Every structure is written in C-alpha cells, then in structure tokens.
C-alpha cells in the first residue's frame, strides 16, 4: 500500500489564532480516512491546505508522492472534491452541472458522456437529469453535489462534511455510496463532526481539536487510548453521599456523575461491572428504573482527552 497523502508539521495561523498546529497525517491508498472533530477544530482548513487553495505558514503536503501546488494540474486531475456547501450552478440542470464539472477534468466528449451517465446512475438521480437544483430536495442536492465531485473517477476523494443538514435516509444512501466508491478503488478522506458516520465508514480515524491530532488509529485503537471501558447509566432517585461513596469503591470504578436522578458511572476495562453495580443497589434496597450500559464511543475518546463533548 502506498502513501496517498502526507502532511508534515502543518501550521496555519489566522493572525494570532493557530488554526492548524503542527499537524501530521499519513493516509494510505485504499483507506477511508476519517477526520473527526468539532466545528472549528481545523478539519476544513486542513482540507483547503491539502488542495493547495490556502496559504499555510509551515509544513509540507504531498499527494501521490508529489508536493501539491496550485498549478499541480496532473495531481488535481486525480482528486475529487465534495465540500460542505453545495457547489453547483443554480441555472444548469443536474446533467449539465455534472457535465460541466466533469468537463473541467475530462476533455474527451465521448468519455465524458459515459462518466456523466455513470455518475448520475451512481447517485441515483436518473429521473432528475433535467431538473434544476432548486427543484431538488436537500438530500438529492447533496447527491448532485457528490456526483459533480466524483464523475471524473478520481483516485482520491475528499468529502468535507457532505451530510450536513441531510435527512437520515439520504445520509445512509450517501454513506453507502462512499463505501462503494472505496470498494471501487478510491481512497477517501471524510471529515465530519458526526462520530456515528465516522465509526460507520472509516477504516482509520484522526480526531482533531484546535488544529492538533489528539488521537489517531482505527476506531478500536482510538478507544483503547482512554481509560473508560464501559459507561453504565441508571435512573435512580435519592442517592445519598454515603451510597455514592460506596459506588466509587466498586472494582474498576473510574468516574461518576449524578444529576437529576441519573447516575452515570464510568468503569475502566474489566468484567461484571453492571452486575456489581446492580447488586449493590439491590443490597441497599434502592429502587431504580431504566438501566443501560454503553461501550466507549469516539465522543468518549474526545471527552476524556479534551474534557469537552464533540458537539460542544
């Protein structure tokens, strides 16, 4: 497997604000690489630098083994871009839009026609070929946005929050499509602040905050970086200080929150945490309602490392 993207020591400042702080990334061929972070964490800035659109203060970026510059047209030919904001011409139809953008990459008319048809087929917009963008729903518009970015069959596809404000059904279709593109051989870079999406489709993840990579690896590797192994939530009113202290004494206990009758206990990796907690509550004759246990999510990884929620 060869390295498709290599970002070394990237620094981007806006005045005094450091948007990207010595960021390093290496993305391998065939990966679906997720960039996860809250809004303003530096995901889009990283993508803009990677596309040689944005000036940066320090660092090196190479794509397919070559430094990327604004006039690296040969490299750009193999990159597909789908940005957060829908970027289509309002006054051109679905088919014309895809043909226009595909035409910026592919000059051969016959080849382009075939690629446009395939892209329309891929995003399932066949019956909307002659529609103007304003007649499309939000989900269909996003699919058109994707088709415009992938019609030329790029080897590297960069998707920057492509599912923002999309209904769940369309979102699933988009995610399935991305998986399919990857299966067809494209390397994917997918940025999002939706951890569920990243967990669902990405083979490797970089969690970034304040322009820094705070966790990198597969989702299992990222989760293994934190202490929390299990979070148990119990709906239990009226616990007193002594009882809470006893819960703190349970094996593998890591952290606890108790607010509005909801007890949330985090345990380190270990077995039988739920049974032990419920046994204690029964022993103390404490009535409790709903109980559920969760394995750590990427949000837990982010929370434990940064002290704040991903969606803050």
């Amino acid at each position, binding site marked *: 497997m060869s390295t498709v993207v290599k970002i070394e020591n990237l620094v981007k400042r*806006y005045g005094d604000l450091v948007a990207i702080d010595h960021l390093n990334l290496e993305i391998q061929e065939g990966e679906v690489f997720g960039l996860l972070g809250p809004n303003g964490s530096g995901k889009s800035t990283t993508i803009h630098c990677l596309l040689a*659109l*944005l000036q940066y203060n320090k660092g090196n970026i190479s794509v397919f083994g070559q430094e990327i510059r*604004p006039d690296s047209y040969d490299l750009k030919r193999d990159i597909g871009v789908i940005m957060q904001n829908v970027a289509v*011409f309002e*006054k*051109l139809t679905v088919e014309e839009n895809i043909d226009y953008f595909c035409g910026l990459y592919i000059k051969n008319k016959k080849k382009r026609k075939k690629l446009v048809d395939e892209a329309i087929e891929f995003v399932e917009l066949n019956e909307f070929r002659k529609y103007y963008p304003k007649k499309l729903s939000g989900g269909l518009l996003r699919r058109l946005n994707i088709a415009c970015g992938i019609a030329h069959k790029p080897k590297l596809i960069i998707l920057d929050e492509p599912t923002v404000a999309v209904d769940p059904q369309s979102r699933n279709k988009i995610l399935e499509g991305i998986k399919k593109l990857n299966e067809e051989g494209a390397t994917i870079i997918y940025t999002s602040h939706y951890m569920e999406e990243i967990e669902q489709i990405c083979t490797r993840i970089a969690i970034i905050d304040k322009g820094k990579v705070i966790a990198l690896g597969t989702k299992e590797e990222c989760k293994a970086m934190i202490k929390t192994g299990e979070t148990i939530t119990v709906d239990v009113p009226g616990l007193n200080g002594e009882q809470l202290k006893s819960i703190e004494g349970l094996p593998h206990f890591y952290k606890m929150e108790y607010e509005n009758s909801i007890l949330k206990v985090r345990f380190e990796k270990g077995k039988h945490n739920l049974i032990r907690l419920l046994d204690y509550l029964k022993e103390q004759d404490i009535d409790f309602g709903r109980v559920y246990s969760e394995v750590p999510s990427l949000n837990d990884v982010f929370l434990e490392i940064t002290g704040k929620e991903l969606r803050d």
Partner: protein
Amino acid sequence: MRLYLYHLKNLIKTKELLFWTMAFPIILGTLFFAAFGNAKMEDNFSRIPVGVVIEGQADAFEAVIKGISVEGEVKNGKALKSNSKKDTLFTIYYLSKEEAKKELKKESIKAYMFVKSDEDITLFVDKSDIISSIVETFLNEYKAQMSAIQMIFEENPERAAKIGQKLMNKIYGKSEENFIVLKEESVSGDKYNPYINYFYALIAMTCLFGSMFSQKGIKELQADQSALGVRRNAAPTKKMTMLFIDVMAALTIQFVEIVIAFIYFIGILKIDFGGKIVYMLIMSAAGIYVGNSIGMFIGTVVKGNSAKKEGIMLAVNLLCCHFAGLMFGDMLNIMEQHAPWFNRINPAALIANAFHSLAIYNSLEPFFMNVVILLIIGTVLNVFSIAIIRRKKYASI
C-alpha cells in the same frame, strides 16, 4: 466552447441580472419617452425665447448675444412668437423688467437677463429645466470669458458676434480649440434634440450595468467567495481560462442586450440617434468592456459579502451615470464646465460624449478618442483585477 455555452446559459437564466441589464434600461427609456413626450422627442430643437432687460451700458454683451439670436417682436409689452428661420440659439425680446416678469410667468419667454452693464448680468428663470440651464450655461460662459470678450470688442466690435458662436459651441460641451469642424445644423440646433442626452446616459448605464455579470463571474471563480469557487479552483483547469470563458459569455449577452435596446429605442420609440449606428455599437462594445472591468475590479478588490459589493457597484454605476446626465440631462455640460477632468475619466460620460460627438461633429476623432480612453480605463482595471485573481493561494477561505 462547451464551458462557454454553459456559462451563457447560466447567465441568461439569471433573471434578476437580465432585468437590471436589459428590462430596466428599456423600461427607463420608455419612461423618458413618456415623460418628454413623443412630439418633443421628434421636434427639432427650436430657438429659446429669452427676455433681455437693459438698464445700463452693455455694448459688448449686446454684440455677443445678438450674434447668436434673432430679435423677436414685442407688441404692447408682449413677446410675440418669432417665425424666423435663421439658425440661432435664442430669440431675444427687449422688455422692461415688469414686462419680462409677466412674460416669464406666461412662459412666453423661458428666462430673462437683467443687464446693468457688461459685467453685471442677472438671470431670472421660472423653473429649472434643460432650457433654462442652456441659458444659464451661456451666461456662465460669457462671464467666464468676459475680459477676453471686452478686449476683442474694443479692438474689433464686429468679431463679437463670432465670440457668441464660440460660446454656443462650448454650451454643447466642446470648444472649437479642442475639436475640429462643427456641423452648422447641429450647433444651431435644427437637428439637435436636448432630450437625447438622457438616452445617451441610459445606454451608458446599460453598458456599466454589465458589471453585475462580471461580479457574479468573479464570485463563482474565487475560492474565498463561494463554494463554486472552491470547486473550480480545485479542478485542473487554469483559472485564467475559466475567467476568459466567463467574461466572453458575459460580453456576448450584454452586446445582444444593447442591440435589443437600440432596436427598441430606434424601431419602437423612434428615437433619432442621428444614424451612425455601427459606431454607436462600437462605442457600446467598449462601454460593455469597461462595465465588465468595473465589476471585476470591485468583485476582486472589495472585501466583504456579495451584498456589499453589489451595493458599492450600484452606487459607482449610478454616480457615473448621474454625472453623465441620466437624472439631469445637462449634467454632462455642467461637469464639462466645472470639472472637465471628471468627464475624461467617468466611463458613462465618455460613452455619452462619444455619442454626442457622433451627432455633432463631422470628424470621428473625438469619438475614437473617447473609445480609446474607455479601453485604457478598462484595461487598467483588468490588469489590477487579474493580478489579484491570479494569486496562487488564498489567505483564508
């Protein structure tokens, strides 16, 4: 070619652009036509009836004004309509002050001049319009050159009449020193239509409103201005190629719009632009080029959102057109007297002046002079814009 056609379609289907650049000028032209009246538009320019109240010695002034006037008959203190066929600017009526006041009120005369001496002349008008402004312009020119006039009058009283002719030329914005041969009938007015200024300024406005097309084009090309810009900049097509295609599409549409406007004005409203339509189209093409350049320049240089840029662009265009006579037909002449340099750099004034020169002069030199200045202005603006657009990377997106 395919990208050019797509851009053409993208612009043609942008209704708000088409409204401002084609429908609006046609509507405004129709309103001008309705306001000034069909008869007036088609009428030949007739002499302006002016009262003269002499209350002192003003030989030089009298000699000058007589050189460009016929004397109208006054009966029982009333100014009678002159039937003279002579080519002059004014019909003057020698009246007492009281008579002049009455005649002005009755609109038998458009203005009267109260003359105490060669130096002390006061103009009275009942309302401010293009006619009264021509009289005022004459008087201002006379006053501005009074010392020279007096000197000439003292040396050779017969030459005073010719001075009047010179002043008259200046009233139409051009002095004999600057320009070549004046067509007699244009100067004295048999074919001069004072309202045509509004249409010249209107065509200038149509040209400058082309800036809206290029501002849209710039927005869709710059990565720091739109998502489309990001996508287009990420593509392996040269930015200058895309810019060239955008501009060519915009110029094509605007030129067609101008042709449609001319067809409407000449064919439907029967506005007489004095022939030379090919030259007028050449001028319009140069005007469109500058209009696009202004849009590109503002779109590139001004920081901020589209609304801000559009606001600035509209203000610039309307100011240029105002000073070219869109809101007040004689503004071009007023600017020529008080700030002639502004008429040399105001694109709308250059366009209107070029049309004037086609109507007035035999020579095409003044016309092409305006075309060249316009092309220079457009090119300078384009060089600045392209220097910025060409930049390789953005500081922020």
